[in-house]
């Protein structure tokens, strides 16, 4: 069974997914979104190459033995639609986040902020923060709450 996969396709998949993961690790939601789109496209390519390569799978056009495998293509169509939906939703979320707070960065979670607060109040050892002490990072000790103009709640 020849799948049509070759070194170029694997490198393409690797580059797409690799760049996607790098972007996914960013704090800004719009970069995360780009990362997810890249990973999604890489995965779709991977699925396509999982099936047999050949002519269009239409009876009367191609000999059955020379047909490509239609199933991965059908699956990829579904996957594209799903990725599209998620992309739209993430766009909406990052827009909403920008609307409410002035940026689309994913902030620290509750626990992280508590630990930072305690470290600032010298209640825990700064060694617990892993390397960099609380005093050395003013952004962490004094969370940048009000330096951006906050917009009114709700779309009006």
């Amino acid at each position, binding site marked *: 069974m020849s*799948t049509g996969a070759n070194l170029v396709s694997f490198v393409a998949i690797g580059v797409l997914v690799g760049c996607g993961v790098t972007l*996914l690790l960013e704090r800004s939601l719009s970069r995360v979104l780009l990362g997810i789109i890249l*990973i999604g496209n890489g*995965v779709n390519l991977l699925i396509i190459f999982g099936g047999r390569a050949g002519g269009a799978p239409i009876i009367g056009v191609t000999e059955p033995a020379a047909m490509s495998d239609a199933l991965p293509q059908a699956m990829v169509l579904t996957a594209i639609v799903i990725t599209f939906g998620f992309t739209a*939703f*993430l766009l909406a979320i990052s827009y909403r*986040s920008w609307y*409410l707070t002035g940026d689309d960065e*994913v902030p620290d979670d509750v626990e992280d902020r508590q630990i930072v607060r305690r470290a600032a109040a010298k209640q825990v050892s700064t060694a617990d923060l892993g390397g960099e002490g609380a005093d050395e990072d003013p952004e962490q000790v004094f969370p940048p709450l009000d330096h951006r103009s906050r917009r009114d709640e709700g779309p009006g």
Partner: protein
Amino acid sequence: MTALVPLPVLLPLLGAALTLLLANRPLPQRVVSVGCLAATLVVAVLLLVQTYRHGLLVVDIGAWPAPVGIVLVADQLAALMLVVSSAVTLCVLLYSIGQGQAETSETAPLAIFHPTYLVLTAGVTNAFLAGDLFNLFVGFEMLLAASFVLITLNGTELRIRTGSTYVVVNVLASMIFLISVGLVYAASGTLNLAHLAARLDALPDGVRLSLQLMLLLAFGIKAAVFPLSAWLPDSYPTAPAPVTAVFAGLLTKVGVYAIIRTQTLLFPGQEAGELLMVVAGLTMLVGILGAVAQSDMKRLLSFTLVSHIGFMIFGVGLSTVAGLVGAIFYVIHHITIQTALFLVTGLVEQRTGSTDLRRLGGLARMAPVLGVLFFVSAMNLAGIPPFSGFLGKLGLLQAGVAAGGPLPWALVAAGTLTSLLTLYVASRMWNLAFWRAPCQGVAPTAPLPALMVGATVTLVALGVALTVVAGPLFNVTTDAAVNLRERTPYIQAVLPGGPP
């Protein structure tokens, strides 16, 4: 009777379409969605009776025969999960109607709660009934897409913040699942579960093991198994109470269900058994230690949720029939009881305006009914006899002892310790929120709507009733587990002519 099989997916989907058309007309919307879920519950019960008496039901969608077309398969496990999930979703729907969560308001101009909730239910039931890997993926995506909308309901700043973590983590898990699906297809040329069960055995060991690990990774994120669980306690608590309740009860269990299904049907060998047991032990201990450190009821309960996922994974990891029986029983117990606890917490929040244990107090006197509901559910979760939590844990620990060996014994010890710590956490919540004298500044607010209390009472009673029907329930779970281990009934029902 096979005509019943697609109904648990179709009914909620049709209901979702109808309720979307009826948006901004509250009464018809409520009637349609309650009617849909009630009908789903009836169908699920019929399916359970049918599968228990006569074996599996298989439907080839569009009359395309099995390995080519899409199949829906209702076996005992799927039917059991359907019954529990539709009962729980119905209760939570009534609760949210009572709370007015589903109504339009300033911040939610379009009444999308009902349609989204029904799509979520359809996704869950589709995942339970899916007979091929890609349909399982589609079920997951349906429930995920709906859960994204529900967790960011009203789009407040807090919900957007926690929702974005939830969305990114779950989209990543979906991508990993999709990669696994692609690799499974490339390696075996099929995605039908029964067909895969026959074909995967022929693959080289290394390929099979890597496929298994990829799938476990994807399902592990969904099920919140320890190293992959950090997203859960941070994102669940901010959603509206009924949403948190149904997420906590059902969504992680869909992941556990997928692990049970693939581990028994596709990978019956025991290569991953030890790995599963190690992560199960870590999930239990790390989860419950996290719960000990919390001071907010919702966050605390989210950590106990993570911790108790470990019990189910332990049962799966044992790879014995007794372990599976325990795991399935525990899934059923935990769905009802975890949802009930979150609903009670929602009532506490409704009553006092807070779930912070540092500010609550004196609730047992202020709202005795609430006290009873919380006490019964919390003791049930901690596994005090004669509640079903005790029976589930006993079954799992017995299975561990019967399996013998250092690792199962270590897991038995970890399980016992986790139960004790759960009891500690539960009594701490009880002492702080209910038993001690009221704190200053907690003013009792509005009285509780009868429908909310009624739905919660029903669910707590359901949790207690699991003890009463424990005997028959153990028979059903044993039956399900035996069939899962044997595999042949499933393969023969889906592929009557043998695998091509």
